[in-house]
């Protein structure tokens, strides 16, 4: 499924990488622990997290994830945005808490 389709249906705010929304989302992963994401996420996964510091960009790049969804309408750190824009990484912000956005994504057909 294309990231663009997910963004449209989930009513999320795209805060970076809006030119990269034609990426294919091949799965999803939810975690707030960097090492856990590094160990267990797969290439092409859409990552749901509440972390907003700039290292999430490095982790997403490292694992070649398709994008990041920030939950609870959290305000992303400026440096994180700057880095994400630099590397063209899509970051979306939703007002929903993790549990709900993940449920909706799963319903939409995003699974492991």
């Amino acid at each position, binding site marked *: 499924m294309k990231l663009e389709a997910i963004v449209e249906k989930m009513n999320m705010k795209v805060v970076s990488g809006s030119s990269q929304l034609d990426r294919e989302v091949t799965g999803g992963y939810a975690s707030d622990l960097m*090492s856990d994401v590094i160990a267990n996420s797969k290439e092409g996964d859409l990552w749901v*997290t509440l972390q907003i*510091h700039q290292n999430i960009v490095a982790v997403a790049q490292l694992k070649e994830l398709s994008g990041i969804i920030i939950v609870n309408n959290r305000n992303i750190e400026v440096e994180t945005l700057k880095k994400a824009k630099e590397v063209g990484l899509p970051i979306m912000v939703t007002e929903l808490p993790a549990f709900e956005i993940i449920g909706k994504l799963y319903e939409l057909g995003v699974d492991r």
Partner: protein
Amino acid sequence: MAENKKYTKTQELTYELRVKDVMNRTVVAVSPKTTINELREIFRDNRISGTPVEDKGKLIGIISIEDVINCLSEGEMDAIVADKMSTNVEVLRPDEPLVHAVSKFNKSGFGRFPVIERDGGKLAGVITKGDIIKGILEKLEIHYHEEEIQRHRASYIFDDIVADQTTLSFQYNIKSKDFNRAGESSSQLKKALNCLGIQPDLVRRSAIAAYEAEMNIVVFADGGRLSAAVQTSQIKLTASDSGPGIPDIEKAMQPGYSTAPDWVQELGFGAGMGLMNIKNCTDKMDIQSEIGKGTHITAIIYLNNKK
């Protein structure tokens, strides 16, 4: 006026290629006694529109389809070649660069030039504009093909350097508690390994191990060094710091065991998985640590897919 004059690949090739590289070597030379009628058939049978005229192995002229047409309109098809050929023949030498041929074609308006050996004046071939175009296209094709292969193989530095043992090493200095730059070294290392044309999954494993090692240094130590030594058979990652040291390595290796301060854990680091992650994505791992002195981790990833 000194604008950047573009010097194209095609132009470059006209200097690189020689007349002998593109000329047609199977020449159907005719004798001066051939009649125009016979010549017409020779042209038709060989699908050519002009040819040199040779007498006793010596070039004496050149005759083309135009001459045949003229004879046809004048009703002189029984005339002999010797009377109708052009005798002021301009020739090219086999070793001349193609650019000479090109300018000669442009100046003279002739359709073909005989190519004559420098020694002995023997007819070596004939060159037409078509031969030049064909020759350049073939050469471009070869260049393109080579480029494609090159791109496909990324840079095979190990193939180009001859030595009994080649080691490429990269070193990155890691600052303590600098979360903003944390992860930068391992992503730079990842890029470097990609440049070397190392298999993507091995690059990914190396990058993950490097990332975790880098994070440990950032979180716990007062800075340190991350380095990678790449050989044809393996990548050896080394992470060294002069930090506090690990009191109990066995415990530290257990998933979930962490001594990271709360504020670090809140950022999602120090989950007690780092060392396990390194172990899981490398083929061999060793930790040396001394309290108060520092920690030294080496991890090896085999490049010939032993894992």
